[in-house]
């Protein structure tokens, strides 16, 4: 399923996963890439159910494209740097740094899409418990990568 905005893909993923559908966020096939894209991969036989649920939620896909070959998968590797009083986690091109003492987000770096500076302004200064998850407020692949880094640093700090 192809959407107009990456933010809609993220909302659709959250909705469909919340209802238990086996969907995955992936990279679009080469013929429909524009630059900063995600698509939702799903079993074709479920198209009617899923499009109905998304349309009811106001996030109907722009188009549904059958694919036969493998799609690009999002990054799933994390790199952690321990600065002593601070912990930094990187996912793809995005890095988030928290103070170990009070789990406050002290910096966000990396990325190249325009929501990165805006997301940084929303996150820096918040604790991991009170900060908005970039998955819910981001719009781009950099925003999604920041969400992965955010969720990973939260996992590490709660372990």
């Amino acid at each position, binding site marked *: 399923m192809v959407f107009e905005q990456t*933010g809609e893909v993220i909302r659709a993923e959250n909705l469909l996963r919340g209802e238990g559908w086996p969907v995955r966020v992936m990279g679009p096939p080469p013929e429909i890439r*524009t630059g900063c894209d995600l698509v939702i991969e799903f079993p074709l036989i479920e198209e009617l159910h899923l499009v109905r649920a998304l349309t009811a939620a106001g996030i109907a896909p722009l188009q549904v494209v059958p694919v036969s070959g493998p799609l690009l998968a*999002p990054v799933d590797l994390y790199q952690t740097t321990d600065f002593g009083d601070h912990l930094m986690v990187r996912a793809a091109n995005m890095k988030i740094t928290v103070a170990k003492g009070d789990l406050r987000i002290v910096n966000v770096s990396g990325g190249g899409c*325009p929501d*990165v500076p*805006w997301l940084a302004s929303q996150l820096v200064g918040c604790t991991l418990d009170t900060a908005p998850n970039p998955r819910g407020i981001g*719009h781009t*692949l950099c*925003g999604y990568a920041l969400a992965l880094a955010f969720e990973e640093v939260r996992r590490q700090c709660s372990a």
Partner: protein
Amino acid sequence: MLGIVGTVPDADLGLLHGPARMDGGRVTVAGRELEVQRGTPALLAAALQVAAHLGRPEIHASLAGDTGRGDGSRHLYDWLCRHLPDCICSVLVFHYLQPDVDWHGRVLLAIEQMTRPPVLIADAGFMYAAKMSGQAGRYDCFTPDLGELAFLADEQAPHPFYTRGFILHESNRADDLIERAYRHDNAAIHLLVKGATDAIVARGRVVDRVDAPSTPAMEAIGGTGDTLTGLLAALCAAGHDLVPAASLAARANRLCGALARPTPASPVSELIAAIPRALADLGLPATPA
């Protein structure tokens, strides 16, 4: 003149074009003050510090308000296509913009119509679009960090988000990634690779490495890569050739870190304030305008 193109995280900004100024740490474009946290305003602030120090204050900024929906970037792309052919600038930097292959191609066509071809530098989202479009070789310089270098090296990835794991694992082997990026025509003529050791690359060959002074906390600070690109662009606009400008920019950026002695929680503005002293320590005395 140096032209800087990018976005500002303010959905209400619209389009903003005009001369950039710095006065007492405040950055203004066409009379409007910008908050310098990271991103294009940090690049702009660093460039303005260099320009003021060297007495060459001609910087023009073309900015759009964009918080990630891409509307501002598309308005700016459209403006660039209509106005770039009439612009005169020696160096043109493209920065935080929504990656869009179609618009990227149109902007390149507009650049071809300029009377004198400028030195082209791309970083951040516009660099992603340049690589994805297969036109990386049209640029004089890209300024990737190691994660972005891995993306340039992955001939299949349309965005750093999709860089394949076996290549990301190589991110501590910059030379291999550089070779792979050039082999697949996904690098600019020059690269300034930002990392624990900065690498300056010309046509696939590493011509300089800069690893001192070292301030590891800088990697965590949002905007330190942007300031490096700003330093490079302003030094090029001041008449330095690209390779020596890249070496000097890398040394100056690192020296700013050493002078500011930041923690991972420091804002980039503390490093930007140290630029004049860093340039002077590197043998570039302040020059009156």
